[in-house]
């Protein structure tokens, strides 16, 4: 069962970044290092996370070392929400 956070992120990326609404992103798919998300779209993720979850991801964190999968991104969101 996919959690709400993962689903919301997956839908956003499929719709807005990949323009493939039917696409389902696996929670362990590599997003940044694979090039699935290009550099021009990284800031969109930060904007979405801030609006949707009220969590700030700093621009210096927008790289594969900080998060490269939905699971990792979800962990950041949860740790900053608490």
């Amino acid at each position, binding site marked *: 069962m996919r959690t709400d956070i993962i689903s919301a992120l997956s839908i956003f990326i499929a719709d807005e970044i990949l323009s493939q609404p039917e696409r389902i992103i696996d929670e362990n798919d590599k997003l*940044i290092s694979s*090039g699935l998300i*290009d550099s021009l779209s990284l*800031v969109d993720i930060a904007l979405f996370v801030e609006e949707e979850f009220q969590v700030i991801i700093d621009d*210096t964190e927008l790289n594969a070392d900080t998060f490269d999968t939905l699971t990792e991104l979800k962990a950041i969101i949860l740790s900053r929400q608490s």
Partner: protein
Amino acid sequence: MNKNFPERLWQLCQEMPHENAVHFLEAGSDDLAITYQEFYQKSADFAEALNQAGIQPGEVVVLIIDYRVDLLFAFWGAVIHGAIPAILPFLTEKLNPERYLSDLASLISVTRPSAIITYRDFQPIVTKAAEGGSSVRSILYLEQIKREDKDPVNSHQGFNRSKNDIVLLQHSSGTTGLQKGVALSHQSVFNQIEALSESIQLERSSDVIISWLPLYHDMGLIAGFILPILSGIPLVLMSPFDWVRAPYRLFQAVSHYKGTLSWLPNFAYNFCARKIRDRHLSEVDLRSWRAVINCSEPVRRESHLAFYEKFAPYGLRQDALQTSYAMAENTFGVTQSGLGKEPATQHVDQYAFLEQGMIKAAEDNKPSLIMMSSGKTLSNTRVRIQDPDGKILPDDRIGEIALQSNCMLSEYFNRPDTTADSLQDGWFLTGDYGYRSGEEIYVTGRKKDLIIVGGKNIYPGDIEELLYELPGIHPGRAVVFGLFNEKLGTEDVILIAETDLEKPQDHQELADLIRVHVTQNSPVSLRHVKITSPGWIIKTSSGKTSRSANKAKYLAELNTA
């Protein structure tokens, strides 16, 4: 008059040794200010290193350096030594190292550099690309360069270069672009700087240039690096990698350093307007910004309006938004809009524009387009609009833009075939379409199959070739083209591939495979990937794939969907 770059830099180093040449900005670090004297000294260390390595004046030195201040010094060090620097993009984490290696090896085989300056992490790739009887005699690592910071002297070999010698090479991206190095002479660059400075009314006493543009591209290299350095104008330089993650930093820099001039590709207007939060602009004051020049992609009025609406509350003036048409082959600028007022626009009839190649005033209740002028030609450049037979067209007729100037390329380096093909009766054929209306030049599209995405020039053939490496795609059964995206202010790269696979699941997997493969092996990412069964792609009678016919079919399908 100075005859070459080292003389000019030396002169500035004497006139204003303690004035700042560059403010180098890096996310997470303090800003670094570098005076002209320091700039010269640190560059001279690289000149000395090249000298020690036995590199001769007139030989090419390739620079593969990530975003750090040493890139600037290495470039000027090569120039001071009299060698010819060529800055290449470095390998980012998304790119496939194997592809980078093969592109680099092919560049080396055409350009025949004698040396490469790079950093230690890059040793395996550079060493491999340069092995096997290549022209490269020396690989210099930043970590090995002796930093002596000696008192500046003007006895380096670069001072002996003559004005018509080549001073630098500039490449555009991708497999094809890397094999076409635009070679520019000292005099051509000086002539461009003189004409461009006149048109933008450059003032040493008051101007400050702010740039985030990459230095391997003509706009970043000339407008965002060489122009300020050789004009005694402070340059505030930030990394494109920092900018793309935090575009607000550009505005904070303009505010902090009282920036007056910047150049941006069209997509950046949309990008900044859409992706900056107001909380990052709280103290920002943009009143000093007298020209933000839209250049290197087709210019769109909608993009200017969105940018203005977003930043007017922070002091941006509407008449600061300007346009230019530029290309590496003319060193940089071809046209420039008149500062202090908004660029001219025309409201034109869509049918006449698209079907007849003519400009007619729009009529009520008929489809129309807004065209924005790229300005007037620089004083040293002549433009003519011609038909396919080379006949000169009158005003308001769309044709190919051809150029003459005193700042043209010397040649495509070591490519006499390509150089000859680009010239006709002494005019350089740009491959761009446009029209003239009075003194204003409007750029309307491209003759050559080139996609400009986010300011990068992409050859669709390069991307199609990549696909044929994948299982499930047969040669000749894919087509790539660009399609303008209003929201993003730039072109999307569209890819259509035919496959014999039948299941939707297989199509999905193939689309993913294609996406990742293109991202890792080219400078762009794909926006739309369409997988179809055989027979979709339109071929000409000679069996060639027509990109324009397939684009028209794709658009027609979108409109009926």
